[in-house]
Structures are given as structure tokens and as C-alpha cells.
């Protein structure tokens, strides 16, 4: 069996059309026995508020809320940048459950640990 690899997907945008790719890719990676991790940074955080996530639904895909819940259920860690929360002035913003708040040092480290990264 091949050595297990890790891919890190980084979402930096709140553009609805950019939201699906990292989640679909992460879920696909997991199905192929590749470890997947998703990191939300900067404006990407706007999607993680329950109301915003529920409103994004494009084409035949489920809503982003359903996509994120499914990603978490599959055991794929979703990290959220603390400094971005501060940048957006969200000291007490409600984010979707199951997400992990982490810092800038963690993103650097995850990039170095991963076998590949994709930025959206």
C-alpha cells in the first residue's frame, strides 16, 4: 500500500462560486485514503457563519452548510484563522460547530507538513 499523503486546502475567498471546490476535493481525497485538511483564512471566514453558509447553494450541489457539515462528519479537520476573525471584528461571531480555531503559526506548520496545498 502506498504511503499515506496529506493535502491541505486553503479557502481565502467568500465568493460563492469558489466555495465548493476545496470541500469537494477534500471529501474526494478522503475517499481515496488521502488525509485532507481545510483551512479558512481572511474573507473566507464569512462563509462559516450558519446563515451565510445556508444561503449559498449553486447548481445541483447541496448548500455550503450541508457541504461543511458533511466534511466535518467525514472526519476532515476544518481550521479557522483566529487573526482573520479579529480582522473582521468578530470577537463573538457564531461560527458553524465542529470547526477548530487556530493561529498563524499553525497554518505555516500545516503547509510544511502537507504533501500538497491548494489555495482558493
Amino acid at each position: 500500500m502506498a504511503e499515506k499523503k496529506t493535502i491541505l486546502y486553503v479557502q481565502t475567498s467568500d465568493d460563492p462560486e469558489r466555495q465548493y471546490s476545496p470541500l469537494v476535493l477534500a471529501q474526494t481525497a478522503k475517499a481515496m485514503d488521502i488525509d485532507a485538511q481545510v483551512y479558512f483564512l481572511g474573507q473566507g471566514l464569512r462563509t462559516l457563519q450558519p446563515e451565510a453558509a445556508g444561503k449559498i447553494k449553486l447548481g445541483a450541489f447541496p448548500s455550503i452548510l450541508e457541504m461543511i457539515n458533511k466534511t466535518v462528519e467525514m472526519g476532515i479537520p476544518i481550521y479557522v484563522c483566529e487573526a482573520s476573525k479579529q480582522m473582521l471584528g468578530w470577537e463573538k461571531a457564531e461560527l458553524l460547530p465542529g470547526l477548530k480555531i487556530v493561529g498563524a503559526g499553525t497554518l505555516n506548520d500545516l503547509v510544511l507538513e502537507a504533501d500538497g496545498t491548494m489555495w482558493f
Partner: protein
Amino acid sequence: MPEAVKPKKQLDCVGLYCPEPLFQTREQIDSIEVGDVLEVLADDPAAEEDLKRFAKRTGNELLEFENKDGSLRFLIKKMK
């Protein structure tokens, strides 16, 4: 019973957000001698993962970590 570790310095990062706890931990680690222990207190949830990774990445040793209702405490031993 093992003897309790005595920190050489204590760093209070309570109320500070990323990346401050990491920056200040780095500054304090640089200010102590190899073998000394730094105690860091923080309440930024991001500090948990960040400081654990900081210790590992920089070759220092995380001797202890505790999270009591969101109050984080780290003991980091300077190894090099």
C-alpha cells in the same frame, strides 16, 4: 512522585490574540537559558495549537499543557 517543575519565567498572554502569544513566547524563550522552563498563560483558543506547534517546530519541549475552561497553561523547556 516527580518533583514539580519550577518555571524560570512566566509569560501572561491572557487577553492577547494571535499572533501575539506566539511572538511573545518566542521573545521569552530567547531570553532564557537552555534547560530553563517558561510558563505561558493564555486564553486565546488559537494559542493551544499554535504554541504546541511552536515548541515542536523550534525543537523545544512542551513539558505540560492544561486547559481549564479555556484558561490555557503551557510549560515549555528550552532545549537548544
